[in-house]
């Protein structure tokens, strides 16, 4: 039952549906560190969802119910994170591992805006970013140069902020 809930959560979380799809279809040999991080990452999501489920709210609502409302910048960070998930699937495991390490160590904390923001502050320190850029650990996200840590921060926002609902399908007889 709990397992079921985790899967639902994965699909329900914004950006995560695409992410899970990628993981499901991709053949990859995750390194031990990557695999471990991913497990912790998913585990964190599972715990938060289970806890919220116990309160009788859906996981989707749980994130939206976070005490901080998403600002326009948060929404853009989340959208950029989703862009990465959709367009750079080969990087996602690596970015998850980085993001994971920047999250607070308490496992029962959900990935919400405050925790994403706190992790972002750690991930985007100038020296850390500069060192990554020097090592070649960067990606162009829709044209923007991002260090891997910066990219990882956007991934956290993609998890913390719901994706905009897809446009409702128009009846067949209505011209868009």
């Amino acid at each position: 039952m709990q397992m079921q809930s985790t899967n639902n959560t994965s699909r329900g979380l914004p950006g995560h549906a695409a992410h899970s799809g990628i993981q499901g279809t991709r053949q990859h040999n995750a390194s031990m560190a990557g695999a471990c991080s991913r497990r912790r990452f998913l585990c964190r999501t599972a715990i938060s969802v289970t806890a919220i489920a116990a309160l009788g709210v859906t996981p989707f609502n749980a994130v939206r119910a976070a005490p901080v409302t998403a600002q326009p910048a948060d929404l853009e960070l989340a959208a950029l994170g989703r862009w990465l998930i959709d367009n750079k699937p080969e990087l996602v495991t690596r970015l998850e591992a980085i993001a994971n390490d920047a999250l607070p160590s308490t496992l029962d904390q959900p990935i919400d805006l405050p925790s994403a923001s706190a992790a972002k502050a750690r991930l985007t320190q100038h020296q850390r970013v500069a060192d990554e850029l020097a090592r070649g650990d960067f990606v162009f996200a829709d044209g923007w140069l991002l260090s891997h840590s910066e990219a990882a921060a956007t991934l956290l926002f993609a998890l913390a902020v719901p994706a905009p609902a897809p446009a409702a399908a128009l009846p067949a007889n209505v011209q868009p």
Partner: protein
Amino acid sequence: MIIGGANVQDGRTFEADVCIVGSGAAGLTLALDLARRGASVILVESGGMVFQKQSNDLLDIELGGQSTPALIAGTRERFFGGTTNHWGGVCRTFDDFEFEPHPWVPNSGWPFGLDALDPYYTAAAALLGLPEVRRTYDPEALGVADRPALVRPTERDLQAAIWRRVPLERVRMGPWRKDEVSSNPKIQCVVHTTIAQIHPGPSGEKITSMEGRTFSGRTLHFRARDYVLCTGAVENARLLLASDAVVPHGLGNEHDLVGRYFMDHPANVLGQLLLTDPDAPASQEEHLAENELVGWTTTPAARRAHKLQGFMSWVFPRRPPEKLPYELAIRELVQPLGQRQKPSSSRYLNIVINWEQSPNPLSRVTLSPKLDALGIRKPHLHWAVTAEDLASAKKSCELFSVAVARAGLGRVHLEEVAGPVITMGGGHQMGTTRMSIAPKDGVTDVNGRVHSLDNLFVGGSSLFPTGGWQHPTFSIVALALRQADFLSSRHR
């Protein structure tokens, strides 16, 4: 004296020590310096004193390879002063590094080093009204160290490069030098006359005359001890190839090299630089002296490490200031250096790049069977940029993006993530009569003399065996002064 060729008696012959074809940056500089040194000079110019469509149409060119009309349009002018009638006047010397052969770039390097050209760079600076030759960007020496700079002297993989602009009164070389030419008793400048054929003697080793044609139907002849073609990289090759009556395949073309190695500095808008350093001025020129410009180029160390050709980038205030996709997100991610506050509003600049094309024998000017209005075969340009050139430009863009981000200056948004798409020619056409030590490697020797001909010379950027990343005209002027030195010694 300036003579309109259209009204001269048909068949007339002009004589002088040196006959120069073309009155652009190369031809004008050479003619006036030779005259100053005592040589008599004929300067033949295809156009008149102002732009006329009829003469400009003689520049019509067939295009192949990667050349498109947009890449070539407006890159050459056919009247007194040549393309300096609309150049930007931006000057810079070549650096030591550009003269050296680079093992990772086939056919690269010059047959001499910077030291051979240095005294002429100094003379060229004096001639063009530039206070001095400057290669490095040294804020202390410029007296601007206390002002906020957009470009710092060095970043990892990047270095600042400084350019100077020719002062306004000298930038249009035709109007600037017209009176000097017309009042100089040593110079006969024949305008409205297009050189159509170069005639070698029967042995094919020496030029005996040149034939000029006018739209009024006259044929004029020019005789001199030495002849110099200064008609630009496409036309220099065209004239040599079209002069094939005595020597098959054209003059100087024994090794099938005339017209090959055509190069330009392809240009693109790389993208935008979102300034994240709140103290950075939003203009590269803000803190510099008038007529000075600063931009970036990759360091020799980076070029060696990554096997790159040259690259230069400039930034310009972006107009109109639209919001870039994800700009808010980027401003959230990028933390300013040290104690600085985040900038409250977005400021971004357009990044323009020019990059060096490697000398490629397949990039070439040949002749079309079609004739122009004066009965001369039109040129055909097959401009070929190699995959290595594109990869080098892409890597350079990456190094640039990383360096400015590391420096805390700003964040780059690339327009073409897959690598630059060539959208503009630089208007810097080069390489079709390259200099070399050995005749098998080039068309001309270190003095610009066609290897196989005793008295035929070439001037201008068609001599460049490697194009570098620097604007060419300052080097064209320096080479012309060097050539004047050499030619005048032959006439003493």
